[in-house]
């Protein structure tokens, strides 16, 4: 459970993709048979948009593998919750296990994909998503550090800039790190960026967003893929 309040910032002046569209775009990269851990917030939405025909097994670090969508109202079971403490259901073939076994799945590299929110991502793959380093804040980290250290593919879903217009994707994070060199891909409202040994590589842009704009809103050099694409997301809000 990570503190991604920044990712939940106000929607005013947002451009590009809606949040469901960001989740939709991330969902296209989840392959059939993947074991997936989704962070709290927008990442949770990803499960809704995985293309039909792909079977995905969801893991939640509090000790459930193979959970399904939220229950119907009135069907909630207090002992059947996810890491965000929200009610879940079970798919056939689900299992329960204790916390050490659950994090053995994470730390041991058994989860294929983790998607979470971010305060900042460095072009070296560093992630900051648990603390702004504010002196008066009560620090809280949850399982974010374990997830980014242990999962094979760690992706970020986050707005490209903060509600105050500051770039979230930058050469080096200024906030305390969650993990060093852990992020492979970013899904923002404006673009899909890969982190490569040479830094950010722009793969896809949201409709109407130019490379020049993205260079302005990204605080690090931005290479552009030869086959740069436009994200064609369905209408979702």
């Amino acid at each position, binding site marked *: 459970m990570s503190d991604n309040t920044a990712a939940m910032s106000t929607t005013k002046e947002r451009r590009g993709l809606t949040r469901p569209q960001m989740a939709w775009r991330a969902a296209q990269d989840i392959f059939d048979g993947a074991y997936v851990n989704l962070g709290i917030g927008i990442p949770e939405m990803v499960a809704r948009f995985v293309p039909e025909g792909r079977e995905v097994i969801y893991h939640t*670090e509090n*000790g459930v593998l193979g959970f399904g969508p939220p229950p119907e109202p009135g069907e909630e*079971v*207090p002992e059947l919750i996810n890491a965000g403490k929200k009610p879940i259901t079970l798919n056939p073939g689900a299992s*329960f296990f204790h*916390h050490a076994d659950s*994090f053995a799945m994470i730390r041991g590299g058994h989860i294929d994909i983790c998607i979470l929110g971010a305060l900042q991502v460095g072009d070296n793959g560093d992630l900051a998503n648990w603390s702004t380093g504010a002196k008066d804040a009560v*620090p809280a980290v*949850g399982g974010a550090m374990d997830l980014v250290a*242990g999962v094979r593919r760690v992706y970020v879903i986050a707005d490209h800039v903060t509600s105050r217009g500051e770039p979230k994707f930058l050469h080096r994070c200024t906030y305390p790190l969650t993990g060093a060199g852990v992020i492979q891909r970013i899904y923002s409202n404006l673009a899909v960026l890969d982190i490569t040994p040479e830094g950010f590589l722009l793969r896809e842009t949201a409709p109407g967003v130019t490379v020049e704009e993205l260079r302005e809103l990204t605080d690090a050099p931005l290479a552009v893929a030869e086959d740069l694409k436009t994200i064609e997301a369905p209408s979702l809000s």
Partner: protein
Amino acid sequence: MIDKRVASAAEAVADIGDGATVMIGGFGEAGSPIELIHALIDQGATDLTVINNNTGNGQVGLAALIAAGRVRRMICSFPRGTSETAFPDLYRRSRIELELVPQGTLAERIRAGGAGIPAFFTATSAGTPLAAGKEHRVFDEREYVMERCLTADFALVKAERGDRLGNLVYNKAARNFGPIMCMAAATAIVQVSETVEAGALDPEHIVTPGIFVKRVLQVETPQLESALIAQGATYP
């Protein structure tokens, strides 16, 4: 005959002394042993070190124990709860200490404590402020942090069913920290919704073998934090 069953919550927690280290099970309200925690509040032990993933919810259970000023030090991964203000208030006034531990490292440290492993290495937190001051080490070109095990004098745990020998099964995701806390505590005290005859639990299905459990208390209809919070309940 071995009989680990105790008659009351007060009896179950009677010997928890001032300064004790107490692991408390649960993740959110799932698995939270509210009745045992309330008995501990009644009992009066103070200056406690408490190990739990969070810091409780509302003004009951762990949050109430903290609010009552009984906890000197929290070891946890996410010191925030639902409608819970006791911990942040005390923390900002430097009236409670916090050791912040990544959730998986917390679980593994507890498991190590139960398994006789004094220390282990993990990549979790390497390169972050939470690894500051810890020994680092490279294995196969990757950097790891050395973490020490966690043990406790007592564990308070909630399970679903138990027998006189202390064998336990849990209820869904309420299993969470229960099995490993029972392993890591010198005295694991478990409240169960139902006690059954020895032999009634299938040997293939037992999650916590009785060897890890010292006391079993039946609490037939345990309270739920969410219900208590909805009622605006406070404890004591």
